């Protein structure tokens, strides 16, 4: 790499040619403030719009100020980041942004997490010199996401995420000048678009323009209702991130404290989605082996690869974009929905109550889960299998509201029978985890041999698209794994063009899998946080006594007492679903 010498604020440094002023400055401890800039190069997302102009700096010999986030360094470049000219410009730019921003910080969902608020605080802006017309847009409520474009600062991160990373293409800049805003096709409601509710736009939005729909008060109401039995399930990725909301280091697993907190919140039963993840493996691995065997026996009606179906954003994505592949994903419901279905049938029977008496609350790292819970096929006579789906962030707020001192909580265990899970269920939370869990079970069923080393390292990585093969007793099983819907699109295009020879593919919509979900604590562009969460998940798996789903005694009991065997008629009724061809617009 060619090197060049740059002087920033009087300090000279040798850096690779072509990096930005911002990156070069960072190397010598100069932190230039940014707003629109977001570089998630691990997932190949770089928002280089350079539109906010907060990061402008003085470059010797240049007539105007340069945006440090997008200006490459050159040899002999002299930069001043904190001259009065740059500071005055930055302050005025901030004041301009604030002059068209609602001053509703007290009631804003992003308060405390808002990057604009932070900058305003840093710059000690006490009075906004400019005033005038304010942007006014209607709020758009969808099952998962609220768009409040009055708060949009046109950083375009959501647009980059939606179009370039996820290739969903719902959000785009429209109109001109002061009236320009990020909007949907013909300003339709999100609900009427191909939005998958993956929530990555929310995850990167610096302000309160994109936020989740908050159901925490519905949870409080349900718990307060003496006529309801309120059951909570928690997704695997939640425990790896919840601690961050209480100041713990990223990657701290807080399973026990989380269970204790949920019990103190007043839930009647605290169960685990991981249990349902084990159940998912039972059904999905069976379905896969069934398809694989028929396929290898030359049955032309069988299509491979099988695609995982745990991620609701991914499901909505292929329903819109790949309706011709609708028979390829596994018909197994996601763990959240399997849990709901079992809680309101099997567990309701145990309690001897009608399903209507039970309220199932799920705590998810995900915004699309809210939408999934609302899908009509997951209702029985209008009663949903999962009543309320909240995010990790909402749970943290519930805990705070209930005056629970999270840090001083003891570690407690999930309730039985739907709270027991294996290491296979835990790793659902991280990319490659579902397929690894499935392989652990499918291997033993297919080969009839015991699997000694359950850790399939070849399936673990933070690459957005990866392929691996697993030896199934002489038979090479080709596996594809991807996260991010743009990567999923590439794999699906390969399948469509007949170029791929995968037997099974795992797809997750979010970076790093569910641990990077749209409902997790905000990572503010630091993907190390997501990596730390992945380590926490694998750590938890490693310390589980049972690490294969089909060895979970409560799962075995569920099949013995209630379902019969995987893919039985009852299993099909409760644990499998079907998909719908959806239009693009």
């Amino acid at each position, binding site marked *: 790499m060619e090197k060049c010498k740059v002087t920033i604020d009087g300090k000279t440094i040798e850096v690779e040619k072509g990096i930005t002023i911002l990156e070069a400055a960072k190397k010598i401890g100069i932190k230039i403030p940014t707003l629109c800039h977001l570089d998630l190069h691990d997932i190949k997302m770089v928002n280089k719009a*350079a539109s*906010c102009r907060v990061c402008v700096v003085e470059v010797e010999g240049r007539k105007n100020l340069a945006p440090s986030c997008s200006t490459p360094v050159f040899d002999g470049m002299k930069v001043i980041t904190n001259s009065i*000219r740059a500071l005055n410009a930055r302050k005025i730019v901030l004041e301009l942004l604030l002059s068209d921003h609602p001053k509703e910080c007290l009631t804003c969902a992003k308060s405390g997490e808002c990057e604009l608020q932070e900058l305003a605080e840093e710059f000690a802006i006490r009075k906004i010199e400019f005033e005038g017309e304010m942007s006014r847009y209607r709020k758009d409520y969808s099952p998962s996401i609220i768009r409040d474009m009055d708060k949009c600062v*046109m950083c375009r991160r959501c647009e980059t995420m939606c179009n370039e990373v996820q290739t969903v293409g719902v959000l785009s800049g429209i109109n001109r*000048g*002061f009236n*320009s805003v990020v909007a949907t096709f013909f300003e339709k409601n999100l609900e009427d678009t191909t939005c998958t509710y993956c929530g990555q736009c929310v995850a990167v939005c610096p302000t309160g323009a994109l936020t989740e729909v908050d159901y925490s008060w519905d949870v409080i109401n349900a718990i307060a209702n003496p006529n309801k039995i309120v059951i909570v399930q928690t997704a695997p990725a939640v425990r790896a991130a919840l601690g961050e909301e209480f100041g713990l280091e990223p990657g701290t697993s807080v399973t026990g404290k989380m269970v204790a907190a949920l019990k103190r919140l007043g839930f009647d039963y605290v169960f685990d989605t991981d249990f349902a993840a084990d159940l998912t493996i039972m059904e999905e691995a069976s379905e896969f082996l069934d398809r694989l065997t028929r396929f290898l026996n030359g049955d032309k009606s069988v299509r491979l690869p099988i695609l995982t179906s745990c991620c609701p954003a991914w499901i909505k994505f292929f329903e819109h974009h790949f309706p011709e592949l609708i028979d390829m994903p596994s018909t197994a419901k996601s763990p959240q929905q399997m849990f709901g279905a079992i809680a309101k049938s099997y567990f309701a029977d145990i309690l001897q109550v009608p399903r209507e008496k039970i309220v199932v609350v799920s705590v998810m790292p995900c915004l699309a889960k809210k939408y999934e819970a609302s899908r009509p096929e997951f209702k029985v006579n209008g009663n949903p299998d999962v009543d309320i789906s909240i995010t990790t962030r909402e749970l943290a707020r519930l805990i705070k509201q209930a005056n629970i001192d999270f840090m001083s909580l003891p570690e407690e265990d999930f309730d039985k029978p739907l709270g027991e899970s294996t290491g296979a269920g835990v790793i659902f939370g991280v990319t490659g985890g579902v397929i690894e869990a499935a392989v652990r079970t499918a291997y033993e069923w297919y080969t009839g041999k015991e699997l000694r080393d359950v850790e399939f390292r070849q399936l673990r990585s933070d690459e957005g698209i990866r392929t691996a093969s697993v030896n199934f007793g002489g038979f090479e099983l080709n596996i594809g794994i991807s996260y991010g819907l743009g990567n999923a699109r590439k794999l699906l295009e390969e399948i469509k063009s007949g170029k791929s020879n995968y037997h099974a593919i795992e797809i997750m919509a979010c970076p790093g899998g569910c641990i990077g979900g749209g409902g997790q604590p905000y990572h503010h562009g630091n993907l190390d946080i997501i990596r730390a969460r992945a380590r926490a998940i694998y750590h938890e798996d490693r310390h589980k006594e049972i690490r294969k789903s089909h060895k979970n005694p409560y799962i075995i009991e569920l099949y013995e007492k209630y379902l019969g065997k995987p893919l039985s008629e009852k299993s099909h009724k409760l644990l499998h679903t079907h998909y719908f061809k959806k239009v693009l617009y």
Partner: protein
Amino acid sequence: MSYQRYCLVCNSSKCGHYSKAIADNIKHYLRENNIKDIKVVMTECFGLCKQGPIVKIMPDNIVYSGVKPMDTKEIVEKHLINGEVVSRLVHENKKSKQLKIVLRNCGFIDPENIDDYIEKDGYFALAKALKMSRMDVINEIKLSGLRGRGGGGFPTGLKWEYAYKQNSDQKYVVCNADEGDPGAFMDRSVLEGDPHSVIEGMLICGYAIGSNKGLVYTRAEYPLAVKRLSKAIKDAREYGFLGNNIMGSGFNFDIEIKYGAGAFVCGEETALIRSMEGERGEPTSKPPYPAESGYWDKPTNVNNVETFANVPVIINKGANWFNKIGTEKSKGTKVFALAGKINNVGLIEVPMGITLREIIFDIGGGIKDGKRFKAVQTGGPSGGCLTEKDLDTPIDYDTLLAKGSMMGSGGMIVMDEDDCMVAVAKFYLEFTVDESCGKCTPCRVGNKRLYELLEKVTSGKATFSDLDKIKNLSNVIKDTALCGLGQTAPNPVLSTITNFWDEYVAHVNEKSCPSGQCKELIRYIIDHNKCVGCTACVRVCPVYAISGKVREPHTIDQDKCIKCGACYNTCKFDAIYKK
């Protein structure tokens, strides 16, 4: 009957005061001398208004300037009868102020006939270039001193060389025909009047930089330009000037037309490229420049219509011919679209270095209705205004920039004493506020806030601290906006606030508009000494704000008055005045 001689008398606005008297006098003396084979003909402007009135004798081709009615006897007796030139009146310098290089064929040839173009040496420059080495072509353009005519004035040869040096399997030549400056229409005129000159310029550029694909980005609102350009492209293909192995040289090149929807910002080259790719027309940060990474991320050379139209002439006549025209750093000519409060509104082409005075008072025929010149806006909404004191500055890229304005694409809008300069600044800013793409904060919010501050000034609500804010905000916008549109948007504000500070102060301090243009600051008042009580004003007032008895002086109720001016226009006794 046929005439031996014609006596042409300029009857255009400036000379017009005397022209009738001059013509009548000449006719009178002709009659007196019983001369019947000389005819007096009234003409339009000679473009010598400053020296007017003008009389020209044909076919002798003698021009008399500064002719007064009393000079006519001498002209008739001395010249027309005795054939002796009246030397004291002869206008010696017959050199015209205008020089047509870009417009060399406009209005002379049939734009839809390729043979008309070839007859005027069309495609000979291409033939010549194809026999030169690519670098020689670029050096010729560099030596000519040609600079981009789209506004920025970047040396064209350097731009070509930069694109030439890029290693790429594909390069593009883009002609920016997205003319968006209000009041500028030279690119349209060239495309409508001489499309082949642009095609030939693009071909030469394509050959020089090593590109086989040209694109013309024009606006869908220019249907005739598109029609004529399409016909020209089709004809050029049939003659083999476009296509493969052009004139046996092995050079391949073809041109495609891309349509824009007319957003002003799409004239900015990076936004133009995004628009051609089918994306939202938004500029991107430079670097990378289009020459490195442009259309579909390939090296792309973008020049505007007028720049390309210059190229064939430079190749044909040589760089050393071209660089003798103009000033030290700005060579050749510039086409201007003259508009505003000027007599001869039109499209003109003048050598660089001409003064504004020559443009406005000679070619333009001076200010309409004999009013006083106040300012001229060059460079459209991105430029600034120049005033009386700048009239004698030779204009080129650098002098205009030094005066806080710019060449721009060549719009030139003249303002007279009736124009309020705060309102003018507001007018231009309104345009850029409307046309901003909304991408960067300084342009999206900053220019809007700047506009709102100006509105405060024109409505008499501003304070001195608002004027400070205007200056500071303008400078920050210039310093921080992403593209040329935003960076130059405050220019009209800054240049008017510098040149017409008193007018701003009057709006703030006295809450009055010296030009009587800012509606909210005007008061219509009836002069009781002049009012005869005819009640005409009472009848036209839409809000019943005028009261008074018949045949007695009337009064306007200022609280009710909406300043529509109906009374002012109706009064036959000049009894109503603006304050």
